[in-house]
């Protein structure tokens, strides 16, 4: 653990993203090092989010407290509209919080703190696959020798070597999302934030990409916060599943996933413990989904 570990905290007020397209509006409220112990990577403490004000106010996220250790892979599941994406966007500094505090330990200030993999097609159409994947390090002014090998390796890992010079419009939806994953890993952030990255893909592509993600993650052991509405996906991928209620999103359960890694989905599916765990999460969620639909 480097001695200069610092913690970044956020709270405070938004400004228009239009006038500050790149700049974060983070407000450092915690500067002490070693907040919550040396292995604590990320903590959300009594975080709430309210959209609008007065009578029109909508509480999207209510008093969420989550702690994530270094190298942990956590999934947040919940019914549609429960505010799970909002939680991720607040961690990513894409949205300000209304109440509470988010503290992130920035172990190595030369590295990116967070990078988001979005649900929708987010790779830049005017850049080749290679330029998209190398986007992060290029923007952080890393010398080319510092990222070239990693970029080629990641392109190979997601099976796009033949398409390295192709433009995104020549790729299928699944291939675009592979580029997006490779781009995030190439940026080598301390925390990877994934917002339902496979939700728009078909079943087969989703299974393949989940396994690819686990393989790449297994080699890097990054801290990951993964948002999903799929219980199977959450249990298959993560070390811990955080279950959220219908709006306003609250934490209903925080469940450890006991399965050994490396995992494969078809092995897990025949394990009775897998069925028991997904069943338990489903029973928690069932009433919430009804509530959200009502």
């Amino acid at each position, binding site marked *: 653990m480097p001695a200069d570990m610092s913690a970044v905290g956020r709270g405070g007020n938004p400004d228009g*993203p239009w*006038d500050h397209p*790149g700049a974060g509006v983070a407000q450092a409220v915690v500067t002490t090092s070693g907040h919550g112990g040396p292995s604590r990577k990320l903590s959300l403490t009594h975080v709430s989010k309210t959209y609008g004000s007065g009578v029109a106010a909508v509480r999207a996220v209510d008093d969420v407290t989550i702690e994530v250790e270094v190298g942990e892979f956590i999934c947040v599941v919940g019914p549609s509209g429960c505010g799970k994406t909002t939680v991720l966007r607040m961690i990513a500094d894409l949205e300000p919080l209304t109440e509470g505090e988010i503290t992130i330990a920035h172990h190595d200030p030369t590295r990116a703190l967070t990078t988001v993999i979005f649900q929708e097609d987010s790779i830049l159409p005017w850049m080749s696959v290679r330029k998209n994947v190398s986007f992060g390090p290029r923007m952080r002014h890393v010398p080319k020798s510092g990222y070239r090998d990693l970029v080629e390796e990641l392109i190979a890992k997601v099976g796009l070597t033949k398409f390295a010079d192709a*433009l995104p419009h020549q790729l299928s939806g699944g291939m675009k999302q592979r580029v997006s994953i490779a781009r995030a890993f190439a940026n080598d952030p301390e925390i990877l934030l994934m917002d339902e990255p496979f939700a728009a893909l078909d079943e087969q592509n989703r299974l393949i990409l989940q396994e690819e993600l686990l393989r790449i993650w297994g080699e890097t052991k990054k801290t990951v916060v993964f948002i999903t509405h799929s219980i199977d996906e959450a249990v298959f991928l993560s070390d811990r599943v955080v279950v959220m209620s219908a709006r306003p999103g609250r934490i209903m359960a925080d469940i450890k996933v006991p399965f050994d890694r490396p995992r494969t989905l078809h092995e897990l599916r025949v394990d009775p413990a897998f069925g028991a765990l997904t069943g338990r999460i489903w029973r928690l969620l069932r009433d919430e989904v009804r509530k959200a639909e009502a």
Partner: protein
Amino acid sequence: MATQSANRPASRLEVRVPPKNQRRPAHIDRWLAFASPLIAILLWEGTVRLGIMDDRFFPEPSAIASTAKDLVQSGELQRQVGVTMARVGVGFAMGAVPGVMLGVAMGLSRHMEAILRPLVSALYPIPKIAVLPLIFLIFGFGEMSKYLAVATSVFFVVLINSAGGVAQIPVIYREVGSSFHLSRLQFVRTIALPGALPAIFVGLQVGLGVALIAIIATEFVGAQSGVGFMIWQSWQVFRIKVMFVGLATIAILGFLSQTLLEVVRSWAIPWSPSNRRR
């Protein structure tokens, strides 16, 4: 004679048309696109020769062509075209460059939008031709007044399209910028500019058309050279054929400059949806 040469390729085609027609209908479209102006010119030629159209107002195309040939041989036409195109080129650059820059700034920043929007909304609808006397008053009849007449016409069209182009960049690409913690300059260079480029080119294409209109009008009243001057002068001395040569020249210049811009566009925006269809 002319009719025969138009028929011959068509009858040759007929032999293999049925299978080819089914496979490649685009082939027929290309012929139609080529044939329609040709037929219009032939109709024009024929009706003038038959005395249906008055050749004092509409000299037959063959006579206009021979006038054009004389003007080319004397070097007169090239000289006028050169003068006009230099004015269009300089004026277009003078209007388009600040138009793109301010337009992008306006699309990026609410402050810039607040400052510029009312000015643009008020000044844009003024026909730039109406400002010509003022330009002549301030800058005299030198080349600068021609550049400015073109530049003011081009500026607003390019500015409005550029601002709209930046504003229409999907939110997701802005968030990618935030997620990768881009600086303002990096955001402009890697996301705002390329994202707005298709709209910027629409502005440039419209601007180029407007530039030709502006320069011809300016040369009508305030120049002793250029294609516009050539047309105006031929009206005053009733050299109608020269006038038609001037009109045809503008049409060809418009077509060529748009084609050139289209080539630049498909080179600059290889990801553009309209390039993909080809």
